[in-house]
């Protein structure tokens, strides 16, 4: 932070592009030849950058304070869904299922759907505020899918409602309705896109539309979390 007061005006004029061409050239020559001058200039630049970033640091500190006060007010706040554990359990179930089926022959499509489908967790937890979808999500979490559907259907423009509508229909093996809901979700690239793609394929499969299922599975990109599952299922269908 060691820069001379006498240079502030010059440094500022240079950084704001207010020097004439000649002055700028002179300045840059001095920067190249005079290491003390260069160090002072860099100190000034660093000081200004810190000044700009001070606002960001203060804002981030405020976020930490909000988190702390939230934790204090609500120690059991927000479900943290152990997706990794759910994934592990689901993988074991699928492996067991496939191993058993291997012994008795190729499963039918609905069995494959059952082996690969698990209703996605409600990740739309909103703390301290009730929103319109909450009633539907509560029913959904309780496994009351018919009641959840009635509520989700009231939000045809809401991509989150459409996703959980698809999940509810798929849980009830109402494949046509699930297809419609997932196709609606896939109109935009929201956070449910990848899971909706995979569950769209399952919906086709439930409807015995193997071609539709295969095409949907094949279109799932390597970057998707469901790529390996999609490849496994494709292998099952071949």
């Amino acid at each position, binding site marked *: 932070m060691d820069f001379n007061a006498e240079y*502030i*005006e010059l440094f500022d004029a240079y950084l704001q592009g207010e020097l004439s061409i000649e002055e700028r050239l002179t300045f840059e020559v001095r920067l190249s030849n005079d290491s003390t001058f260069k160090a002072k200039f860099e100190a000034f630049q660093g*000081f200004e950058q810190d*000044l700009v970033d001070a606002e*960001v640091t203060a804002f981030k500190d405020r976020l930490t304070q909000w988190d702390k006060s939230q934790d204090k007010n609500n120690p059991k706040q927000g*479900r943290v869904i152990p997706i990794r554990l759910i994934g592990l359990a689901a993988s074991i179930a699928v492996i067991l299922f496939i191993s058993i089926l291997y012994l008795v022959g190729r499963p039918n499509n609905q069995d494959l759907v059952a082996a690969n489908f698990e209703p996605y967790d409600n990740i739309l937890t909103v*703390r301290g505020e009730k929103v319109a979808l909450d009633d539907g999500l509560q029913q959904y979490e309780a496994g009351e899918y018919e009641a959840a559907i009635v509520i989700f259907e009231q939000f045809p423009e809401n991509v989150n409602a459409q996703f959980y509508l698809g999940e509810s229909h798929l849980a009830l093996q109402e494949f046509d309705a699930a297809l419609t809901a997932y196709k609606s979700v896939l109109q935009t690239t929201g956070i449910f896109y990848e899971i909706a793609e995979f569950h769209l394929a399952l919906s086709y499969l439930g409807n015995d539309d193997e071609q539709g299922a295969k095409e949907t599975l094949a279109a799932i990109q390597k*970057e998707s979390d469901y790529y390996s599952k999609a490849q496994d299922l494709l292998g099952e269908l071949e």
Partner: protein
Amino acid sequence: MDKKATIQSIRNQDERVVQRIYGEFKPKFVNWLKGKYKIGEPEACNEIYQRSFTVLFFNIKRGKLDNLEASLETYLFGIGKMIVREWWRERSKDKNTLDIEENNELGQIDLLANAFKGNEIDDDRRRKLGLAVQAMGDPCKSILTLFYWERNSMEAIAAKTGYKNEQGAKKKKYLCLEKLRKQLLN
């Protein structure tokens, strides 16, 4: 509150709205980090969320998202992908970047990389500087916050702080910087 109204409230730094949005997006964002990127440590999830939300906030505040087409949530998750990539790059030895598809609207995003760089000592230095600015009397406090934080031109600052012209405000800015520098050295 619709998207435009939310963006306007955030631009106006309406603390209640900012805090509400921060709390509202967090559970979903953290679950997404755990599910998609297998980032399990709560501290890491928190850090990535805070950085992502900070980037969202400052890009709104600086008027870069006035014509945002995507939803705020989609945009925040887009920022999240880029922050995860940076976060991994900071921690990975080979410094490989991840192949993450980016939303076109994220092209011009300022990730505030400099503000997140460094360690606790750097953060402390910035904290001291920020507090020192806040503690300055006017017009220094106004001039410096309007210039460095609100990104006003010197012409606008002159008008807001009652200086006859840009040059007068500029001279005062130099004196304020010098005063601030001295304060921090003492």
